[in-house]
């Protein structure tokens, strides 16, 4: 690209110019007040757009029984009764327990297997490597609406339904595509010298992985854990189809079945939405800084 080439060559000249008259240029580079204001107005507008629908259901979840629900309005008085009612009506004790059980199995197991697979693809040489990697990648693109149809009927026929594992095991398999892809990228950079050093010290591949490599790429692993937790907690289609009976249902699938039909208790539904958002939001809030960094840098690597 010729245009960028000439710009690049000018860039080096600009650098020299900057060095020679540093005071002047850096003064010019300090963002003017007007640009700051414009930036905050734009970002503020989109942040408001993002938060408004969520704030509005938070408000509705606190409405007293008598208050008419119309548009965005503050509650006349704070009423936590909607939460208690939603908890009982939707059987949240069961739903949240099931969601937690699924996440407790899916997150560590899927992460563990992703680390093993990513390690092999990033650092080892073997036959059929490209084909095997494509097999993993296919899961990333596949609309799971398709394979879940025969999966459901086949598992039914084999009598494999009626346990948490009908949901947990396919969910792990589905998450692996992304996990292996992610861990391969994480192991790919700057790890070669570490591996060589460990090898010279006589470490085998297993020790090298857990004692040397994993500690060196903690941020990427934290990001993976956070993503897997959010995906597992929020997973809808698999839970809807594979969880089976009501007492095995997770929170999103259990509540989701109420929607679509005419909603009679918006206060309760809003409260239910808030309740089930708390676990992923807590995880997100505590880990958001490293998480967003991980997503924006790791996701873009080829």
């Amino acid at each position, binding site marked *: 690209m010729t245009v960028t080439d000439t710009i690049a060559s000018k860039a080096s000249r600009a650098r020299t110019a900057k060095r020679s008259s540093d005071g002047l240029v850096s003064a010019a580079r300090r963002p003017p007040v007007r640009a700051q204001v414009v930036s905050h107005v734009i970002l503020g507008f989109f942040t408001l757009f993002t938060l408004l629908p969520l704030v509005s259901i938070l408000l509705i979840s606190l409405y007293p029984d008598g208050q008419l629900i119309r548009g965005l309005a503050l509650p006349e008085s704070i009423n936590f009764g909607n939460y208690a009612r939603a908890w009982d009506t939707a059987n949240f004790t069961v739903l949240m327990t099931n969601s937690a059980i699924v996440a407790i199995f899916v997150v560590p197991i899927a992460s563990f297997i992703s680390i093993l697979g990513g390690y092999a693809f990033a*650092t080892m040489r073997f036959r059929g490597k490209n084909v095997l990697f494509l097999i993993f990648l296919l899961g990333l693109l596949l*609309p799971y609406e398709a394979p879940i149809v025969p999966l459901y009927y086949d598992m039914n026929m084999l009598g494999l339904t009626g346990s948490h594992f009908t949901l947990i095991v396919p969910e792990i398999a589905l998450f692996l595509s992304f996990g292996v892809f992610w861990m391969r990228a994480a192991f790919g950079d700057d790890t070669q010298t570490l591996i060589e050093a460990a090898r010279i010290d006589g470490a085998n591949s297993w020790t090298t992985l857990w004692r040397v490599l994993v500690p060196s790429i903690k941020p990427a692993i934290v990001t993976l854990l956070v993503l897997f937790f959010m995906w597992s907690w929020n997973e809808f289609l698999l839970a809807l189809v594979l969880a089976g009976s009501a007492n095995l249902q997770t929170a999103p699938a259990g509540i989701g079945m109420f929607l679509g039909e005419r909603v009679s208790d918006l206060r309760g539904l809003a409260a239910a939405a808030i309740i089930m958002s708390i676990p992923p939001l807590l995880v997100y809030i505590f880990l958001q800084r490293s998480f967003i960094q991980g997503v924006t840098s790791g996701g873009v690597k080829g």
Partner: protein
Amino acid sequence: MSASAIRPARKVGGSVAGPRYVPFLYLAPGLALVLAFVIYPLARTVQVSFTDWNGVIPPDFIGVENYVEILTDPELRALFVHAAVLIFFYALIPIALGLLITAVLARTRVRGMTAYRALLFVPQALSMVVVAIAWQWVFASTGILNQVLTLFGNEVTTAWLGSFEWALPAVGLTGTWRQIGLCMVLFLAGVQKIDPALYEAAKLDGANAWNEFRHITLPGLRAEIAVALTLTVTAALKSFDLVYLMTRGGPGTSTSVPGYEIFARAFNRGEIGSAASLGVTLTLLIVVFAFAIERFRKES
């Protein structure tokens, strides 16, 4: 990543792992699960797509009849038109807006950017069920959208999700809302990696804002745009959750998309063969899109 960079000089046939079978030990658990729960069911989907099957009596082989139906039945073809509309809302609008905002903010170091990024990303952390509850309320006849529109004049009481014309754009806009933060966060992070000297050079050259965007920001964000495109386009084509939760495909079939129709045929109406053929078609479509986007990324 080049192969030689990964493997410094080493004895013939060697690998980090030692014996030849070791890599396969590391791959075995993942491969077993993916073969059992992704590849095998996908192969079964292809097989079932050539049959007429209601899930109870044994399937009846009917050849490509299900696929002929997808090509000829206007109602089935409409599903893919609806999916295209969703691509517009899930992918094109968020990416265009994300780029516009990034261009405006390009070199301004904004105070509090981390806070903005964290808040813009919140929709990605929430269940689609929560998203659907919030946006059903936005579009309700006494909801927020009508409250805002009423500010501009006459009272509006449209129930947007119950309207044949508006329900699909309404579902699409919900997708826009979910994806826009993702695109902005990706692009704003990407633009930070572009060498500031490029912008200074352009300024010295007297380049205007458009030239700066066209020749520096846009090429610099190629990788981020490709990632955003892949994520949002596949999300649009796969979309099931929002349609199921907000409209169940209605009113009529005005918001039905392939993902929802697969579910409805397979689990509500017992038309499993037809559902499978839609699934195979959708899978092929997504693979084609993904390859096209990958080519776009590798270009230049």
